[in-house]
């Protein structure tokens, strides 16, 4: 770590450092863009992955924390803190041209904190309406319902955008339009059978060919991060189940680990094993749903039911142990909430036994079908370079041959002890993404098979204080959720409720490549690309 410190000091002498869980680099705003460019391009540093962009309001100042990591340097993670002293006219240089993933991330920060990003091509709000008053995650936000009543009229001028550029030392606002006058814009969503939730794609088409996709998000935005700031740590746990409801266990596992890390708790072995088994069951259920939905979006409705038939078995296992089929609320700080159901081992063994033959059935009815192959192979090309630049993790990133499995790169819980392979495919197309999921089901079965007979006896959770107060500081924890790397950022000021919580959801990045992947393809491909990327809308909107 000190090695990196030296290199960074060489590149940016004015940078100061804070030691912590990750090395934190303080950079003055004026030097930020030049520094960022060197971080990315310098071969010795080579921070090519922007993992998270966290907007922050420290009351006296406002700013952004960037979490960066490198694919070539052992995945060391550093945080870069950029601060604006002027709260009311906060400007930070955009890095969306260096890391494309920053495009939507910076729009989110602008939406919630009002920080304007200089040279950002499209500085619109991301979640809230363009007539929203104020920026809700600022500590001085006025939540008076009179300011933001429930509006019953349409958003006006939704085609207007702007960017802030520097001209002669002054920052100038340049208005622009999302679509041209002559564009034939088809509105796909928010109510549409194939957007997998309330997602809206404004798509300009030329005949059947897609020219541009504008992602309009926020239809089920619940302000989870804002809600967390007023609740205690045990109270915020349940939100994670409601973001990506198909990765409920992994997300909650991540948040619990982050809090346990801050408290220095040792989770009992039995709870660790149970958590990992639940994570993998959840992954199987999620990939089965993804298989079904991909088939469904291609019109193969029968395959959809096949996927659901097996998913039902997984949900039954959850129901018996957790008491719920969705939103299981199973992990708690220090362990899990309830012990396993007596049938658990029997049910999991049954699943392990039947899955190989069922997977073969899926391949017979769908994966090897000529029409399905024609629809998926070579469609929605996402080269490895772009996958890294857009931080597309999870099965979608591994379909572009990017080895990005968090279970291998930042091992957590008992994963280092387990034998499983990271599935990689080099097709970079929808079919590869789809096949990675199918093969990951096999790997999850393998993990379950190793654990099902080796669940140790013992406590299911450790002793935790009655009132949980995190020491002042910041923590960032990642897990491999069903759709990619899920990250939780917690900053605490020592109180019983968090000062700031940020959830870095994988699906947020996935919609970021919709425009890149769909342009030049057909309308029908937009649907299949979306299905193969497999985003879950509540995870984007949070």
């Amino acid at each position, binding site marked *: 770590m000190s090695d990196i410190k030296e290199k960074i000091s060489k590149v940016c002498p004015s940078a100061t450092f804070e030691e912590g869980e990750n090395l934190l680099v303080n950079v003055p705003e004026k030097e930020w863009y030049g520094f960022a460019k060197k971080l990315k391009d310098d071969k010795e540093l080579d921070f090519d992955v922007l993992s998270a962009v966290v907007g922050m309001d420290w009351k006296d100042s406002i700013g952004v924390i960037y979490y960066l990591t490198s694919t070539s340097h052992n995945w060391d993670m550093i945080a870069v803190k950029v601060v604006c002293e002027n709260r009311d006219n906060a400007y930070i240089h955009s890095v969306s041209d260096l890391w494309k993933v920053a495009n939507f991330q910076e729009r989110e920060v602008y939406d919630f904190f009002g920080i304007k990003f200089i040279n950002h091509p499209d500085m619109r709000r991301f979640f809230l309406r363009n007539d929203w008053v104020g920026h809700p995650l600022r500590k001085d936000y006025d939540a008076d319902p009179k300011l933001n009543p429930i509006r019953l009229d349409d958003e006006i001028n939704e085609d207007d955008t702007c960017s802030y550029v520097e001209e002669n030392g002054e920052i100038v606002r340049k208005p622009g339009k999302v679509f041209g006058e002559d564009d*034939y814009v*088809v*509105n796909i969503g928010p109510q*549409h*059978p*194939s957007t997998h939730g309330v997602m809206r794609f404004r798509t300009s*088409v030329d005949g*059947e060919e897609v020219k541009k996709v504008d992602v309009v998000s926020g239809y089920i935005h619940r302000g989870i991060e804002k809600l967390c700031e007023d609740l205690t740590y045990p109270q915020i746990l349940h939100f994670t189940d409601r973001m990506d409801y198909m990765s409920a266990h992994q997300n909650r596992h991540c948040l619990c680990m982050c809090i346990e890390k801050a408290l220095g708790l040792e989770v009992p072995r039995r709870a660790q094993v149970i958590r990992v088994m639940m994570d993998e069951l959840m992954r199987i259920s999620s990939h089965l749903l993804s298989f079904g939905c991909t*088939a*469904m*979006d*291609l*019109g*193969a*409705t*029968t*395959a959809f*039911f*096949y996927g659901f*038939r097996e998913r039902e078995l997984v949900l039954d296992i959850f129901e018996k142990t957790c008491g719920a089929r969705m939103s299981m609320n199973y992990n708690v700080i220090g362990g899990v909430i309830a012990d396993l159901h007596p049938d658990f081992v029997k049910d999991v063994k049954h699943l392990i036994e039947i899955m190989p033959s069922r997977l073969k059935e899926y391949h017979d*009815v*769908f994966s090897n*079908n000529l*029409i*399905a192959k*024609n*629809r998926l192979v070579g469609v929605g090309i996402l080269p490895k370079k772009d996958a890294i630049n857009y931080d597309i993790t999870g099965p979608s990133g591994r379909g572009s041959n990017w080895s990005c499995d968090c279970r291998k790169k930042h091992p957590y819980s008992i994963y280092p002890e387990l034998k499983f392979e990271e599935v990689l495919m080099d097709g970079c197309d929808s079919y590869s993404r789809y096949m990675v999921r199918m093969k990951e089901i096999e790997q999850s079965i393998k993990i379950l098979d190793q654990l099902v007979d080796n669940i140790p006896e013992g406590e299911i959770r450790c002793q935790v204080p009655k009132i949980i107060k995190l020491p002042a500081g910041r923590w960032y924890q990642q897990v491999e959720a069903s759709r990619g790397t899920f990250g939780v950022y917690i900053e605490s000021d020592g109180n019983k409720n968090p000062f700031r919580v940020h959830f870095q959801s994988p699906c947020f990045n996935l919609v970021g490549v919709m425009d890149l992947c769909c342009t030049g393809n*057909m*309308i*029908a*491909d*937009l*649907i299949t690309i979306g299905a193969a990327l497999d985003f879950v809308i509540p995870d984007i909107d949070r």
Partner: protein
Amino acid sequence: MFNFGQWTAAFNNWLMGLGTPEWLGITIECVLIAVLILLTYTVLALFYILYERKLCAWFQCRLGPMRVGPWGLLQVFADMFKILIKELISLKDTDRFLFKLAPYIIITSSVVMLACLPWGNGLQIINWNIGIFFVLAVSSVGVLGILLAGWASNNKYTLIGAMRSGAQMVSYELSLGLSIITIVVMAGTMNINELVLEQANGWFIFKGHIPAIIACIIYIIAATAETNRGPFDLPEAEHELTAGYHTEYSGIHFGFFYLAEYLNLFIVSGIASLMFLGGWMPFHIPGWEGFNAVMNWIPSIVWFVGKAFFISFVIIWFKWTFPRVRIDQMLSFEWKYLMPFSLANLLLMTLCVAFGWHF
């Protein structure tokens, strides 16, 4: 074999015997036939809706409708009643006249086609020498209704759906027509009744062996595309265009599209059974007199309807198995493979007929 013509002739004689003038007699008969056709149309449509729902449920490890009536038999009646009493929503900024006209064009073309089918021995409504040609001509009118519906709705989804439909139907009509012509070349007639009688000593699919089997396969593919059914259901690809050209329709106007879709399935199956499986002609093996006599015991109408249901079953089967193709793949499949192939097949059939290589 029982000839239903005896009944119709008897009825005609009775009507004339009452002293009715000829014009009135013909008018009464026309009205009765129209009522009969419309009744058949409705009953068949209802049956087909249930047939498809049950079949697809079984393919998908489900039970299908089970609540209304025994095995859900009355479900379709409830559905139809619901559609009848629903409001017809008229939309702002649409072309009202064309919007309302479109469903009638579609349903009219499919009713006319239904009237041309050979239902049984003597159960032929119009018998003229260009029968099958007339059916082909009328089937092309349906696409006009789809285009109108898409255009008049003033909606981008419906317009894209209608454009897809136009491209698709015009393309696949070629293969459809060519495969029918292949059989016409063999039979030497376009008269529907004669086509059936020609198959008394063996159905065309057996008599015409290789070219006839190829024509049958091409016909079923093209017919699936003509009826906008999966894997060619692009005009109403619900996962892309919500419901395609009929997105904006409600109530019985939507019901017309819905009924026409199912009836077109029956009609193309009916034509397939006429062209390849002998229409109402029972299964005969030349020389096996006893066997043929037994086959003749089964009423001709059962033969026809049974064959049509069987072919519908095949079409429904692959709709619920295959994913949907994309518009460019669909068009290149037709123009690059299916049409040249059916032209070559037509040539092969002509050679077979010229050299007498068929049975």
